């Protein structure tokens, strides 16, 4: 069933379990599901997460510096959790089909 819904829907769907996830965990999962393995694909998925956070659907709860280069060396890694607003928007968009 993967890879057939808009990427932001899928990202919200992954967060709907209410757990906290690091951005690189989500990015690599989406990359795999949608076959977006280039650096460009990675950055564009990460930007989707940033947009969801600035739209108030995800909340940035923790940051650390990427010292080992798990994602992008010396850049910030972010840990997000879904907000109540994100749950409402996410369930509108996603749960109907699950």
């Amino acid at each position: 069933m993967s890879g057939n819904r808009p990427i932001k829907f899928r990202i919200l769907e992954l967060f709907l379990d209410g757990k906290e996830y690091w951005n690189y965990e989500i990015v690599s999962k989406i990359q795999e599901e949608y076959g977006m393995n280039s650096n460009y694909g990675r950055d564009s998925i990460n930007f989707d997460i940033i947009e969801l956070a600035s739209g108030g659907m995800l909340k940035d709860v923790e940051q650390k510096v990427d010292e080992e280069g798990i994602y992008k060396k010396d850049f910030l890694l972010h840990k997000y959790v879904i907000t109540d607003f994100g749950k409402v928007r996410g369930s509108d968009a996603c749960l109907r089909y699950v």
Partner: protein
Amino acid sequence: MDLKALKKQESKRKISKGYMWALFCAVFWGIWYLPGTVVWVLNPFDEMYLSIAKVSGDGVSLVVTAVLITAFNALTVMLALILWNGVLGKYGELGRTLKEFHPCSKWFFLASIFGGPIAILGSFIAMGFIGGAFAAVAALLYPVVGSILAYYWYGEKISKRAALGIGVIIIGGITIFGGGLLTELSSGTVPWIGYLGGLMAAAGWGIEGAIAGKGLDISEPDAGLTLRFLGENIIWWIIIIPLLALFGFPMYSFALQVFEPLTMLVLIFAGITFGFCYVCWYKSFPLIGVGRGQGIGNLYGMFAIIFIFLFFGDVPQWTILVGGTLCIIGSFVMFTEEASALETLRGE
């Protein structure tokens, strides 16, 4: 570098990126007035205007011609956007977003109703019945509608500073076009339908921004925007133009005459500038919010005057220079806002 500094730097980068998109939007929007003005004197649109005016009068002719020009504008914008999505490799995402009609793409189709036949046609009606200056002043007020709607409908935060910046830009815009407006108003009685057109422009674009924000929450801007123009093309080409043809206006015979090299070139130029103006506009919303995106986008008034001066040689009046300065001050009031205030755009 420590965590806190890195955080600050990252958030700053995001905000400045948002403002950069909004500024590009204003530049493209300003350039758009060049092909938008030129196209009226090119075949087949000038002939169309004259021939319909003979039968139905100037006012009706202007609106009907405006419909055809706007429809071609929407068509070339669509072509530019399809190319843009191809370059970004987003056809897949475009299809996925389109399929989600109920939760998502319906917002873009709704936005296209307010953006196309209400805002753009309203502008043309205002230009035809009152004048270009009035149309532009009216349209400059759209961020007020947009930010108020975004605030009440989904609680988008507007800081005092952003509100102040929007206010200064609006006063600047009114000053820019104020001189011409006074001349128009004092030259005779003004029909109410012109005011209605002005209201349509301000309300239409403001509502479009707020509605689009609802769909943009959960989709990618490039895909969302293309769907918004798909909607506008459907409205013009499948609904309004066939309807006008049914009423006896020669829509198709003139539409088929656009394949002249110069006309095509100007229409494509209009499509590219308008298309990218919208790309930038939509891209700025998730980063800095609808109110600020629209406020900075409003600098188009100033850019339009600069480009019209450069290409057509129309020397600006002093009121225009004062207004342009106010617009720049207003945007700097917003630019210099402390980045931490913008970390998230909505209240908890």
